[in-house]
């Protein structure tokens, strides 16, 4: 079962790298957006909410195509990044991480937002009467209380990034060793007459990863509840 071919190993390690980078980069942005949505009222909030959830309902191919238009070599942001910083995202693994991060973003934000909403804001008030600035109150009270929710969101984001297919293959294609993830490798293998065994291996790997991530996420969600109750 574990005697993976080199193509399969490359796809697995690349997928892990993409999913880790996507999760780590998306998390601080996700925390900021979740906090804004949970705690602040501002004009256009409904638009921000819709934008965050858009990747969930938009066909992934469309998201990938929009990414290509925006971050491709000739795209508005893509050409700016390439000309000024030498950063190219299209057809690179970094582009795959971007696509995965965007597709997984709604799953990342939701549990974080829910845990921010569940935290009693009056605790922060109590912290300020004890000498904590609003920023320190956030760092010492709100953030630790939201931590299980943050981890649950990260786990879901990671799992989604591992399985992402449509947006990734549209934006960065399926180049072995550069952008061929587990999903795009499986897709390529099942179209190859002799690829069934290898495809089955990769399918097994992705099922284990996805199931494990869901279990972990559930575990952390339960811990979040216990933590709020102060047990």
């Amino acid at each position, binding site marked *: 079962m574990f005697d993976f071919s080199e193509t399969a190993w490359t796809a697995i390690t690349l997928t892990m790298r993409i999913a880790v980078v996507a999760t780590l980069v998306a998390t601080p942005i996700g925390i900021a957006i979740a906090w804004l949505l949970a705690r602040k009222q501002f004009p256009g909030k409904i638009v921000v909410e819709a934008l965050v959830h858009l990747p969930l309902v938009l066909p992934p191919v469309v998201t990938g195509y929009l990414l290509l238009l925006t971050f491709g070599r000739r795209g508005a942001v893509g050409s700016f990044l390439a000309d000024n910083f030498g950063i190219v995202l299209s057809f690179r693994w970094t582009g795959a991480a971007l696509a995965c991060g965007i597709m997984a973003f709604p799953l990342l934000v939701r549990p974080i937002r829910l845990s921010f909403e569940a935290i009693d804001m009056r605790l922060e008030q109590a912290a*300020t009467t004890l*000498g904590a600035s609003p920023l320190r109150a956030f760092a010492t009270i709100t953030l630790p209380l939201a931590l299980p929710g943050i981890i649950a969101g990260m786990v879901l984001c990671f799992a989604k990034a591992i399985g992402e297919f449509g947006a990734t293959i549209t934006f960065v294609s399926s180049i072995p060793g550069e952008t061929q993830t587990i999903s795009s490798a499986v897709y390529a293998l099942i179209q190859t007459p002799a690829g069934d065994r290898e495809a089955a291996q990769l399918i097994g790997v992705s099922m284990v990863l996805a199931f494990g991530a869901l279990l972990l996420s559930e575990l952390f969600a339960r811990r979040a509840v216990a933590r709020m109750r102060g047990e």
Partner: protein
Amino acid sequence: MLRVEVRKVLGATTVEASFTSEGGVTALFGPSGAGKTSIINMIAGLLRPDRGLIEIDGETLDDTVRRVHVPAHRRRIGYVFQDARLFPHLSVEQNLDYGRRMNRLPIDAAGQERVARLLDLEALMQRRPGRLSGGEKQRVALGRALLARPRLLLMDEPLGSLDDERKSDILPYLIRLRDNAGVPMVYVSHDAGEVRRLATQVFRVQGGRITAKGGVEVLTPR
């Protein structure tokens, strides 16, 4: 010395209060909804007066004419809330130490021990707030506020969420604080019995205004 002259419109009620306190326990006494909590929230800096002035020991904390507003975390005014508001993810010991850490005060083992003894907290140190009774929570909240070394301690119905038996358990601790902690207090309550036992000065608050002031005789309606 605390000097308060504030006005704040809150929905249908206007809170307008003017008083000074020289120390000891100043009680704001009156029915719920009278504006007592709003007054101490303004002293704490959690609520901003529309107009007025708040001074403590000659330092201006709020002055709407000169546009002074010191934020809550720089006021060094302790606050004990009706619902304790302990931090659920921290142990009792960490809750007690929170104010010291936030104010970057040096570790004061003797002070901590004294407060712990005063409030009988020694046996609770390693527990989480979820495993404390209502009365224990309130004692920890008192200790936490004191250990931040406030120059004034505000208390908003600290016995309000406790049953009568627990109330009579905690009241002696409050009297001990009054006599031993050396921190002036502003005590909000609607319970004449509590105020009678605790206060050195009483202001009756009704409909957002101070309608009577003096000693505990204010508690008996004429």
